[in-house]
């Protein structure tokens, strides 16, 4: 199992490196201007207060853009970080096993004394490690930059908010993964469906605060349970993790069942 993980990470080493650079770059670009932004807080608040509630909900999930928590939430945690991590994990979910199937290399692995279970678990662990490496880089860069630009938010809140993004992204990645496991040839379908659930859900959940009839449908999307602003303010409610984790567990069980019972390869 260790060998499959090791070599999977080795094969994706450049991807991990470039994803880390991109995420850190985006975070720096967003946070480094906070001092300038803060100086113009009064004017910005005035301008932003004129935006419709739905627009504010869509871009920040909140009407607070300029306080340290509001800025960190609107610029990093509400959209940018979960979006980047979601793109990464959907890509991983749709390819970490399916690519080996498409290219026929999975037969080389399963021809050795490696069970389907071990292979599946090894690949899933590899994907999670990649996600954790990139999100750890994100956490470090947020923590360090926040300190430098004087965004006074406790580290543990930043850590839990990052964890929230990771769990949300993992939820969408697991949806992409289960679709490829159920139908091995559907890379486009797995990316498409997972992306639709992720970003369609985000729009529906954002609008549900102003469009009343969307409130209940919004609850079936993982984005509904993602509350970074609450976390950054110290209102950590772990029950919001239950829904996305349940989806991850269900996806894992279905993937395991499917991979163990279907034909492998092309």
């Amino acid at each position, binding site marked *: 199992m260790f*060998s*499959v993980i*090791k*070599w999977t990470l080795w*094969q994706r080493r450049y991807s991990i490196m470039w994803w880390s650079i991109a995420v850190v770059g985006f975070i720096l670009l967003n946070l480094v201007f906070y001092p300038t932004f803060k100086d113009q807080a009064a004017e910005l608040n005035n301008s932003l207060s004129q935006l419709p509630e739905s627009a504010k909900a869509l871009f920040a999930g909140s009407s607070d853009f300029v306080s340290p928590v509001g800025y960190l939430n609107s610029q990093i945690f509400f959209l940018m970080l979960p979006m980047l991590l979601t793109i990464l994990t959907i890509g991983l979910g749709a390819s970490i096993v399916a690519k080996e199937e498409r*290219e*026929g*290399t999975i*037969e*080389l*692995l*399963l*021809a*050795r*004394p*490696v*069970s389907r279970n071990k292979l599946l678990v090894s690949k899933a662990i590899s994907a999670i490690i990649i996600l954790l490496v990139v999100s750890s880089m994100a956490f470090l860069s947020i923590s360090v930059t926040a300190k430098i630009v004087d965004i006074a938010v406790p580290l543990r809140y930043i850590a839990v908010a990052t964890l929230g993004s990771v769990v949300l992204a993992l939820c969408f990645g697991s949806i992409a993964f289960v679709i490829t496991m159920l139908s091995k040839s559907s890379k486009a379908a797995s990316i498409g469906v997972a992306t639709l659930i992720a970003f369609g859900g985000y729009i529906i959940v954002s609008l549900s605060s102003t469009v009343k009839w969307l409130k209940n449908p919004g609850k079936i999307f993982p984005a509904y349970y993602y509350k970074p602003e609450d976390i950054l303010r110290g209102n950590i409610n772990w029950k919001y993790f239950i829904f996305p984790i349940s989806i991850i567990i269900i996806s894992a069980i279905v993937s395991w069942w499917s991979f163990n*019972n*279907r*034909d*492998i*390869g092309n």
Partner: protein
Amino acid sequence: MGAINSHGVGDYISPAGTGLIQVMSNQQPTIEINKLSKKYDRNKNFALHELSLNIYPGEVYGFLGPNGAGKSTTIRLLMDFIRPTAGSASILGLDTLKQAVDVKRNVGYLSGDSDTYLKMTGRKFLNYMNELQPAVSKKYVAELASRLKADLNKPLGSLSRGNRQKIALIQALMHQPKVLILDEPTSGLDPLMQDEFYLLINEAKERGSTIFMSSHILSEVQKVCDKVGIIRSGKLVSEQSIEQLATEAAQTFVIHFTGKPPLAELKAIDGIKKVSVQKDGRVVLHVHSGLSKLFAVLAKHDVKDLSTMELNLEDQFMHYYQADTNNRGDKDV
């Protein structure tokens, strides 16, 4: 033809089991396939239908058939890459479905498509495979690479198909498995490397390994295999030992009579199984016994030419694949 088949497949095969296979049948087969069938979801027809065969320890079994006949399906079922619709298979007494991991501890496998990690060098790829299933020694891997003239330092994607095939062969052979399952192993190899591969197969056989290989190349099967199975449309249509084929061929006579062939007299001889007349009037007959009676008949007639047939697997192959024998100019009598 007095061919051998313990499963009663094909009218071409007589139940008169003699020689190699009958001796082997007292042993436990290394590979035992029992009514194995596979039907893919989207297809109406079976890709493999009730295949049964036994392969015995130390045997090299050639599995012949054109594209789509079911060779790769059989191999992928044995390797548990795909799941059977019906039937079962075992390798070294282990169920290929329920004990797949234990089976693979003893198997070396070569895929027919030579798919591999194109960005890895040969050395890195072999290291990866070695971690999953250790080679007998680094020295042996180096020896295989040297004998097959494999370049281990270039990315596999930059190598030709033949050079990638060499590295694929090394990964299949490097742990000296008890069973080798090879899907078109010499595909892409040049003739020199093909010969080296045949030597490696012989060495594996001498170590007691059992080898199951599919091939399109009839001369290759003839050269390295002990037994050959021919598959058509998912069904085994013939199974014979090469030794038996050679004996059969040696007992096949082609006779050119000056006048009209004495077919009635020839057919009346005990021990003559099949008599056919070619377009040019030559008579082909298969003799099991009663050679002296045959020559007695020939002595009474004017014979222009007499020859025995050489072992030609292609004839055997074509026998099953040519839909209309009349197209060949032969006519059974």
